[in-house]
């Protein structure tokens, strides 16, 4: 397992130490310890009710931890109210002030800063330029589209140049095309200003494209922290492998473990599979997982004899750039396989079609093993 903490400890900008938040008997956040470095774009990723928003609200100061401590830039945040924290937040509902113009919304936080009127106006103009809304400065929020409101909310939360910006599902209310565009915009702005961003999202694609590091949360606990590729290629548990992307998973038992790797046999596959992982001994009960795009599919029998499975195409979907196959093995188990359509061909002439006999090859390095889930 190569995944895990990689940030250097001395530059910890945010340090969350053993933080727990209980609502009655329910633990929304359970003993979370986490460090985020300065200038990072960090994502908290998880399904609804996993505690990610509660953790974010504790950073903002809207919730008080039941136990544990939070440090921002070396300062203990215990007892520091939301209005005194060097933190700003962009709300999921945007929470724009409906009775103020766009410029007043963006400039609201600057009232409390030690600035001259001219400096304030300059900052508002600068922020509106940043999000390309200068032409709408005198509009009220109800006169804006969803995407424009989102950008006003972003400009408002950035106007005070906080040390830390919290974004709660920043793209949740936007349609797909606008999301893709805004994702890159947010990443660009973060890069330009160098402010530390913490993004909460339930959308793994959003987390992957935005963040430099991701924490996967489940039931109040952090399951894995790592770069997007760490988490995708080296998930540390069955849960993470399943939550991020998709994976074929079968129960298996280790039949051989030596220098060459670990060989496992799964009743669902019927053939022994060699996996380039170590740390298991003969007889261990494990879960074998491999991602659909990491399996190669061919109609001809491949030269290599190891890790080859034979099956028939039960179903397939053509998506243009790739196709998704459902391959039925002789054991009755069905695997998902993703193949890039590199050649130009009609869909039915692609790699394989219904009822074709095909060979699947799983590279030993592509397969993953997980021990029993705790």
């Amino acid at each position, binding site marked *: 397992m190569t995944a895990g903490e990689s940030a250097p400890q001395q530059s910890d900008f945010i340090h969350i130490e053993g933080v727990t938040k209980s609502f009655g008997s329910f633990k929304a956040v359970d003993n979370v310890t986490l460090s985020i470095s300065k200038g990072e774009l960090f994502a908290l990723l998880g399904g609804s009710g996993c505690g990610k928003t509660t953790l974010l609200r504790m950073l903002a100061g809207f919730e008080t931890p039941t136990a544990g401590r939070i440090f921002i830039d070396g300062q203990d945040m215990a007892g520091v109210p939301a209005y005194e924290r060097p933190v700003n937040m962009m709300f999921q509902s945007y929470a724009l002030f409906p009775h103020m113009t766009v410029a007043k919304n963006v400039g609201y936080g600057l009232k409390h800063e030690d600035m001259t009127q001219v400096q304030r106006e300059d900052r508002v103009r600068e922020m509106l330029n940043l999000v390309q809304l200068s032409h709408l400065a005198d509009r009220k929020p*109800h006169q804006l589209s969803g995407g424009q409101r989102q950008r006003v909310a972003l400009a408002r939360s950035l106007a005070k140049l906080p040390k830390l910006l919290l974004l709660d599902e920043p793209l949740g209310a936007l349609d797909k095309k606008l999301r893709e565009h805004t994702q890159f915009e947010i990443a660009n702005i973060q890069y330009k200003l160098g402010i530390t961003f913490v993004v909460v999202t339930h959308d793994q694609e959003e987390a992957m494209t935005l963040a430099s590091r991701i924490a996967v949360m489940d039931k109040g606990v952090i399951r894995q922290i790592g770069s997007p590729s760490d988490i995708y290629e080296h998930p540390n548990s069955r849960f993470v492998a399943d939550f991020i992307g998709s994976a074929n998973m079968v129960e298996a038992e280790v039949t051989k473990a030596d220098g060459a790797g670990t060989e496992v046999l799964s009743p669902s596959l019927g053939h022994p599979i060699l996996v380039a992982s170590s740390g298991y001994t003969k007889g261990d009960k494990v879960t074998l997982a491999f991602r659909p795009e990491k399996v190669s599919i061919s109609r001809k029998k491949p030269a290599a004899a190891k890790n080859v499975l034979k099956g028939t195409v039960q179903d397939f979907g053509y998506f243009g750039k790739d196709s998704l196959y459902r391959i039925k093995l002789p054991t009755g188990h069905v695997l998902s396989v993703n193949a890039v359509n590199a050649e130009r061909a009609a869909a039915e002439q692609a790699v394989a079609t219904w009822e074709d006999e095909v060979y699947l090859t799983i590279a030993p390095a592509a397969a993953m093993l997980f021990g029993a889930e705790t």
Partner: protein
Amino acid sequence: MKQRSTFLFSVMAFGLAFLYVPILSMMFFSFNRSRLATVWGGFSTQWYGKLFSNSQVIDAALLSLRIALLSATLATILGTMAGLALARFRRFRGRALLSGLVTAPLIMPEVITGISSLLLFIMMAEWLGWPGQRGFTTITIAHITFSMTYVTVIVQSRLTAMDLSIEEAAMDLGSRPWQVLRDVTLPIISPAILSGWLLAFTISLDDVVITSFTTGPGYTTLPMLIWSKVKLGVTPDINALATVIVVVVAIGVAISAVILTRADKRRERDIQMAIAANK
């Protein structure tokens, strides 16, 4: 179709007649020359002249207005505070009790409220020496106690519908709680506060029962004056007085309706503009 619309039309006509014939007949008879309120004796505006030269009526009207203005304003301040407490502080000791106590006067018979207020004032005068004389102060206090309930209910329901994160956003941007209240919460709920004030004002203006219990010698409000005059028989000057009240109220309603429609239209136009701009 034709038949149905005739039916609908007659239903509407009946409904309107039910509502407005009494008022219109009263207005009609206010221009009656005859002293008898219900026997037509020719057109005259003499009762209006008598009305405006009747200092008793003018004094009563001014007293009613002063009480209504003061009690509505104080009731709005107190009611808004109670509404904020009930809507924003989710968990505090006695919340359910306060909520119940605040809204109880809504369903309490006015006679009960009147008697209890009177008893309270008598006891207070005995033990504290205040209020020595019942009159303007005691009527105003009694009006505040029951009209603030309406303000509380209106403000509370508006606050419940308001997105909490708007207040959190203001706090997040560095505003202390009182600044959040001043900059964000109050401006957003101001229409609710205004309509609460208007309601409290009208309730105070036309109250007879509670006022009768809490008034003292020399303090007669307009509704009390009308009530006492009617006991001696309906005279055309009562008709004239009522007509004046109806006209004043109608003008007030018309003005507020015009303001509201204009605001609505402006809003609609803004939304249209926004949609056009985003295409």
